[in-house]
């Protein structure tokens, strides 16, 4: 008994002494360990802002952080901010890592690419082109050949600026008129915008005042005009049916007020739907019941990728056909036809140009061939259609184009029904 008590006492005493020793050591080393950890964490921050005295992580205190902005660190002496960004919107799904230093003057003082997993490099010099830029990013552009990656990079940097501007940490940079026009074009004619949000157009030469610039959508869904007015430039989108909408450079819809600009644009725009009427008619005739009376629909107010629409009446039954030209792989336009019955059910879905999907993708999608892929849409309505149905692994661009085509076709059908009603 005595020996047992002694054992307990000795072991307890040793434990207590060791605990005191550990507590003392911890009291000495804990602050140093914390400082080491902080120094390690700020190592990458110092790399982009070497003159920094220290950093304070203010990520939690900021509002409206987009997914791309991972961390925001304020330099303690007021030199600016260092932000850690990550984006998966590039070509592959691996995250691109960016550390950017934005000075108190609202300009990028340094930028570092910390993670890049694309097979195609957009060049070591590309990030450096952002140094000295303010939030307007006036002097940088995307890189041809690595459009997705460079756009993702640019968007991430834009997100970083937006966070600082929205939280009143830096002042917004002044954008040039050219930049503002480029940003307004997707609003004026969304149908010509690719999956990256960039309008895919070709410039039109020989414009006359008051039109200063003109662009034709590569997918033939309309024209975009920049019209000079007393209140400044207005961007007017004219769709394939000759219907226009106008926006000022702040992104406000001025269709109702900028009537002269709208009229000038409409007058200048060739009527795409009319120009291609014969060819489109030949395309849809086979899809309608034999002997049906086919009428080309005019003045359709959709600004999507719809390029033509028809109705066909045979006896009591009326069907509608919508031709769309969404942008697919490599920003190539793909021509598609969707035929609806009067209730908005898809009767047929056809691709009038080559679908850039190979056989194995259908197998991945548990579909036997292209016709089976298309057949799955028959019978659907806007309510029963799902974006997931178009997905084909490995053919994302084409699948997105199909998806875009359906959304455009459903919208066009609803507008047609409104007109008919």
């Amino acid at each position, binding site marked *: 008994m005595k020996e047992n008590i002694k*054992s307990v006492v000795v072991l307890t005493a040793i434990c207590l002494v060791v605990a005191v020793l550990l507590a003392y050591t911890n009291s000495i080393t804990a602050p140093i360990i914390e400082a080491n950890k902080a120094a390690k964490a700020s190592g990458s921050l110092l790399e982009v802002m070497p003159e920094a005295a220290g950093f304070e992580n203010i990520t939690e205190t900021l509002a409206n952080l987009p997914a791309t902005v991972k961390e925001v660190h304020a330099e303690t002496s007021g030199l600016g901010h260092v932000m850690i960004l990550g984006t998966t919107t590039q070509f592959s799904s691996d995250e691109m890592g960016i550390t950017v230093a934005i000075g108190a003057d609202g300009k990028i003082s340094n930028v570092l690419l910390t993670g890049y997993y694309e097979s195609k490099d957009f060049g070591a010099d590309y990030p450096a082109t952002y140094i000295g830029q303010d939030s307007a990013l006036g002097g940088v552009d995307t890189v041809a050949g690595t459009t997705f990656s460079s756009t993702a990079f640019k968007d991430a940097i834009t997100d970083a600026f937006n966070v600082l501007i929205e939280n009143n940490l830096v002042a917004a940079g002044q954008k040039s008129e050219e930049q503002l026009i480029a940003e307004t074009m997707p609003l004026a004619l969304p149908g010509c915008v690719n999956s990256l949000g960039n309008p895919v157009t070709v410039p039109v030469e020989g414009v006359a005042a008051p039109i200063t610039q003109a662009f034709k959508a590569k997918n033939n869904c309309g024209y975009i005009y920049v019209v000079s007015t007393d209140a400044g430039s207005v961007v007017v989108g004219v769709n394939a049916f000759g219907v226009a909408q106008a926006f000022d450079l702040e992104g406000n819809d001025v269709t109702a007020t900028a009537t002269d600009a709208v009229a000038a644009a409409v007058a200048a725009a060739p009527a795409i739907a009319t120009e291609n009427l014969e060819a489109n008619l030949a395309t849809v005739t086979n899809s309608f019941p034999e002997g049906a009376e086919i009428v080309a629909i005019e003045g359709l107010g959709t600004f999507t990728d719809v390029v033509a629409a028809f109705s066909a009446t045979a006896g009591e039954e009326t069907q509608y056909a919508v031709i769309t030209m969404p942008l697919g792989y490599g920003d190539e336009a793909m021509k598609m036809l969707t035929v609806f019955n009067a209730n908005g059910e898809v009767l047929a879905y056809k691709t009038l140009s080559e679908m850039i999907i190979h056989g194995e993708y259908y197998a991945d999608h548990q579909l036997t061939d292209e016709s089976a892929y298309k057949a799955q849409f028959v019978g659907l309505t806007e309510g029963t259609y799902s974006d997931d149905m178009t997905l084909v692994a490995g053919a994302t661009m084409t699948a997105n184009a199909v998806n875009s085509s359906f959304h455009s076709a459903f919208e066009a059908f609803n507008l047609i029904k409104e007109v008919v009603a």
Partner: protein
Amino acid sequence: MKKLGILLKGIIKENPVLVLLLGTCPTLATTTGVVSALAMGIAATAVLICSNIVISALRKAIPDKVRIPCYIVVIAGFVSVVQMLMQAYFPDLYDMLGVYLALIVVNCIILGRAEMFARKNGIIDSALDGIGMGIGFTLALVVMGSIREIIGAGTWAGIELTALKPYAISIVTAAPGGFLVFGCLIALVNKLFSGKSKKTEFSCEGCPNAAACNKATCETEVKEETK
């Protein structure tokens, strides 16, 4: 003279790694490079010396029944202290050693020396034993780390050996190479010091299986004596 013998025996004659075959796990794990091997050796030596001194000092106070838990608490305490100090003052080495630093607690060399030497000898002798064994452990690690790093990576302590770099055999830095080099070193030490290395401190006294063992004499002792 006796004290010098205690100090020196751990270096070659009773080298804990190459003769007593203790601490094999950290030896194989941390000898991929010289720097990590040296760091592990120094950390283990510090713990070994301190724990030997404390256990020797407390040898009369610690009841036999709870001696192993007491040793573990003392050793774990010193390991934690070393861990905290390394994390504070040598963070790179701390990161390099990783989990093996904490695993010094269960290093057979430390518990083995506490059980076989410190509990039977005075503080000075135990400290010398700790120093000798620590140096022996460190030397073995550094030699093994040097061989593996030079042959396996063509570098030494991170310094590139230009002539050897193209001929590096990377498997030597991997686990199979560790066993290979370890075996070769044991063979070499056995060859060089054949008959001179003695494991005389293995005996029934202090053997954890002593109570359950019915043999009249310790087989290990008999084998050593008949050599």
